[in-house]
């Protein structure tokens, strides 16, 4: 089921502060979309608006081409998982999961045996088959997460909305549950929108990443596009550690000339003028590495599969990473200059092409 958001505007109640500023977003059926951005960017506000939990001042939200006004129209069609799980503490896991079925009117409600079969089916799907009789207070964070998911899926919604669902989990459980969630999405043919502040998580699990800032969508792209061509300097920085070099693109030579000594110019087809080159530390390549070079390379150990070095430029030091399989001996303790030809170029925060 496709989700289309058009020109959504929302101000904070009782003030002029804008929470969502003319947001439009189209999510096609079967897609897995992650909303990312710093806190206060409006990701959760957008998700709650899609769910109908919050009112918005103008704009429309439609599912499968059908515009939805009230939250009642969304009931059963949209599954929502809260950051706090929001399980009902006084009900067993089974009753929690069947809640959406239990509250149906007599005419629509499945029989008791059908409901309990559905609950068991969901418990099996969540890989917690024996927890039906337990109370939420007894469960671990990961288990609660699965119960919340099962409850959201009980009415067979086509759209699943997840608000920071992994926030409270420890890293190992987090990794396991997000891979599993992706598999579940594919298996059930859901359309999923996930809010997270963890860009790595988003890149790993989603087909499309929607980066938000100040209540706007800054970029909506696939993880690969986002990495290759970040729209703004903010997106570039948000997606991972980045080093920036100020400089000028020369009209006659078509070269980007960095202001700092020790950084090598590179050719570009971008229009001339002042620019900022941004690059990931593992994309920087020290040229003519040899002992006795101008720029010293200081080793800082290894992390996440990279050997961490810092290159001592005259004014500052910048991080330079090498994959661990690079032989130590081949990295010398100094170089003649830093090659940053892989950098993306920005002007006034916007990428130039």
């Amino acid at each position, binding site marked *: 089921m496709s989700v289309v958001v058009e020109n959504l505007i929302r101000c904070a109640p009782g003030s002029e502060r804008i929470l969502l500023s003319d947001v439009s977003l189209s999510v096609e059926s079967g897609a897995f979309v992650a909303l990312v951005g710093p806190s206060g960017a409006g990701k959760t506000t957008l998700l709650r608006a899609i769910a109908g939990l919050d009112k918005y001042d103008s704009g429309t939200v439609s599912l499968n081409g059908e515009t939805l006004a009230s939250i009642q129209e*969304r*009931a059963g069609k949209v599954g929502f998982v*809260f950051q706090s799980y929001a399980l*009902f503490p006084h009900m067993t896991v089974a009753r929690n999961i069947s809640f959406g079925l239990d509250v149906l009117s007599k005419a629509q409600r499945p029989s008791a045996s059908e409901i309990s079969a559905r609950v068991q089916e969901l418990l099996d799907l969540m890989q917690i088959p024996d927890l039906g009789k337990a109370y939420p207070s007894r469960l671990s964070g990961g288990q609660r997460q699965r119960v919340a998911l099962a409850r*959201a899926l009980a009415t067979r919604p086509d759209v699943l909305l997840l608000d920071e669902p992994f926030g409270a989990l420890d890293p190992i459980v987090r990794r396991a549950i997000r891979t599993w969630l992706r598999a579940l999405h594919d298996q059930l043919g859901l359309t999923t929108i996930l809010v997270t502040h963890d860009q790595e998580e988003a890149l790993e699990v989603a087909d499309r990443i929607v980066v938000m800032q100040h209540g706007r969508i800054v970029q909506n792209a696939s993880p690969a596009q986002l990495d290759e061509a970040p729209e703004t300097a903010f997106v570039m920085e948000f997606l991972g550690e980045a080093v920036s070099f100020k400089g000028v693109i020369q009209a006659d030579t078509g070269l980007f000339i960095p202001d700092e000594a020790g950084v090598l110019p590179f050719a570009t087809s971008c229009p001339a003028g002042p620019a900022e080159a941004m690059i990931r530390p593992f994309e920087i390549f020290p040229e003519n590495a040899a002992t006795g070079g101008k720029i010293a390379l200081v080793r800082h150990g290894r992390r996440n599969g990279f050997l961490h070095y810092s290159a001592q430029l005259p004014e500052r030091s910048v991080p330079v990473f090498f994959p661990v399989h690079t032989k130590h001996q081949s990295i010398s303790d100094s170089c003649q200059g830093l090659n940053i030809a892989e950098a993306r170029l920005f002007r006034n925060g916007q990428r130039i092409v």
Partner: protein
Amino acid sequence: MTRFFLWCATWGLIGLVLLMPPAVILAEALSHGIMPALKTLQDPDGIAAIELTLEVTVVAVVLNTIFGILAAWLLTRFRFPGRGLLLVLVELPLSISPVVSGLVWLLLFGAQGWWGSALDRMGIQIAFAVPGIILATLFVTLPYVVRTLIPLMEQQGRDAEEAATLAGAGFWQILFRVTLPGARVALFSGVLMTTARAMGEFGAVSVVSGHIPGLTETMPLHIESLYNGYQTVAAFTMAALLAFMSMTVVFLRSLPDFMNRTREDPS
């Protein structure tokens, strides 16, 4: 050593201040044996006092529970102008002297009061009658359900209710299946506190009741009348009964804790 000393001091104080008075009441009531004590309870005025106390308590508890739930829901789920003032006002009966709360009703509904003569012409008697007693008790016991519910409902937040809405539940389904059961321990506690206070209220009721034996005397008022009339055994028997009723309520309050402990216990 310190812990032992604290233990002794705590129990000593509890024994002296809390346990001794009921023990003395019981001893005085039974000073002539159990039969004379039981006999005093057959007095028609005494029976009327017990009945009136139960009637007032039931009405006060039911009305204040309904009001308390609505007020707590309103105060925790919505932000509106005057909310802070309302929070303070709800607590007012706790800080106002019960005598003053009783006098207010007399000023409004008494023969010389604002609406007294109008009500009198319509043949409605509030002051020095059961409705006045109920009003005074309602006022005094108003804060308990609200004040016990608010912190818990505040902590629960809206998430569970929102989850229920998205699952398709309507307003009443959410109230009766999610909100109230989620806060049931606090609700139970608040209801019992209201009950205990309603049964034992003396000051406010004393002002509005007019002390008419058999008609407008609740148990605490009847105890006073008996005691002032030198009917010591009858007074202390009635007092023992009232103390027993209140203590039952207090012990009931700790029941949910106890039940939770047994349910959480893995064995």
